[in-house]
């Protein structure tokens, strides 16, 4: 593809005998809003981890902004920002300190850091709580902070792994508007996953559906709906994967996982 900012070729990831990502290839054009959809366990997060240098592929190559994710990790890391699916905040620090920490790591100039921190914390309605320790936050508040932090620097590519899960509709709207604005004004390429199909339908310019580590459909939301002869993207998704999306189950699982982590501490 011409002016592709992400190029994935024959990407495979095995955990022991289990193949989580199975020989997938795709590319994402610059400025695209790319929805990477699939049921639980499809291999979305595993793919994102490989795209963001956290995990080494078993085989295959990934080029991000022209840099190889295995051999040119530092260049790759300079080109993206990410909001992870699960927690990645330091809960012994305050909300403001978490923002500050991120801004310094990503070399956002001090004045801009201050200005954006205020703007973003206001968007996610945490400005009044900025000096509270994160461990005192509710799950939804942590999630909102996580997103605000991810948007503090403006990268070439923004990865969002189920960014809005568990958030109220109004906050979801604010956040997506901010991201769409970023995409339009600064040409930031957005690579996201979500279980909210109407969200994907509304924002994505391209959609790829994966299941069991394989790509099963690709196209614009419109094309996919047409292909599956479905009215909504949700119906198209169900027809294509033969599965119902169960985000409630997903969030239950997530809270279980977090509880387990708590106990271990």
């Amino acid at each position: 593809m011409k002016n592709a900012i992400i190029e994935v070729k024959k990407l495979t990831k095995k955990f022991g005998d289990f193949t989580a990502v199975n020989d997938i290839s795709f590319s994402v054009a610059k400025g695209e809003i790319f929805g990477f959809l699939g049921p639980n366990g499809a291999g979305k997060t595993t793919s994102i981890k490989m795209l963001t240098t956290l995990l080494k592929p078993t085989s295959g190559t990934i080029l991000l902004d022209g840099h190889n994710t295995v051999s040119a990790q530092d260049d790759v890391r300079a080109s993206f920002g990410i909001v992870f699916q699960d927690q990645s905040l330091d809960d012994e620090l305050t909300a403001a300190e978490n923002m500050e920490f991120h801004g310094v790591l990503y070399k956002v100039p001090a004045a801009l850091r201050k200005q954006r921190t205020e703007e973003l914390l206001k968007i996610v309605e945490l400005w009044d709580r900025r000096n509270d320790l994160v461990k005192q936050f509710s799950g939804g508040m942590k999630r909102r902070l996580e997103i605000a932090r991810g948007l503090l620097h403006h990268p070439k590519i923004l990865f969002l792994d189920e960014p809005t899960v568990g958030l109220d509709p109004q906050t979801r709207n604010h956040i997506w508007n901010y991201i769409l604005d970023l995409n339009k004004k600064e040409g930031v390429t957005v690579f996201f996953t979500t279980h909210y199909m109407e969200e994907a339908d509304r924002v994505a310019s391209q959609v790829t559906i994966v299941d069991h580590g394989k790509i099963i459909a690709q196209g614009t939301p419109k094309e996919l709906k047409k292909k599956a002869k479905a009215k909504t993207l949700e119906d198209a998704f169900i027809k294509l994967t033969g599965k119902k999306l169960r985000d409630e189950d997903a969030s239950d699982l997530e809270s279980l996982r977090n509880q387990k982590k708590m106990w271990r501490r």
Partner: protein
Amino acid sequence: MGPIYIMWLRQLKRYSRSRARMIGSLGQPLIFLLAFGFGFGNIYQKAGGGDYLQFLAPGVIAMAVLFTAIFSGIEIIWDRQFGFLKETLVAPVSRFSIMLGRTLGGATVALLQGTIVFLIALCFGFRPSLAAVPLALLFMFLIALLFTALGTALASQLNDMQSFPLIMNFLVMPLFFFSGAIFPLKGVNGVLTIVASCNPLAYGVDGLRASFGGESFYGMGVDMLVLSAFCAFFLGLGSWLFSKIQI
């Protein structure tokens, strides 16, 4: 303000906010000062060793530094479990700077902890030549840096805290007991001196004791040299292993 500084600052903030940890890790050194210092003092003196507390205090200070340092390094396991590690691993900063920043932070915390024990020892009657305090601080910092880096190296290979007791019992405790912290290396069984000479902490304790005006076993120059070499080695090893972490 750079990435190394912010990593360092984070370690210090976490330390200053966790009073329980601060006080908790003073317990062991206190017990050693009390139980050994006063318990063995008499016997030691009768055996012609002089004032045991003057001998023991540097060892116990080194112990406080050792424990805090290893623990600071091992903390990476928690960062991994709580997810924060990911945030640092994807940042556009070389993993060496990340590792260096947090190791310097952990080492600073260990140095503070050692300083507190030093002050406590003064209250108990430890009387070093105070002119040598800067040199002693340097030795404490080297010990701190070395073992934080070792903790980091270990933690980057582990996924959870289950191996922690193993590390305490088979690494940290032996390091401490076979370092000459609680008994003089001079005149002990030959095997023990050989064991000690492979133990980086032995040089740390020896150097620390010497800088406080006590008798040195290896010689202060050798202590400094060996300690620095170990330190460089573990910093290298730690950052190499840290850079290989996958999540």
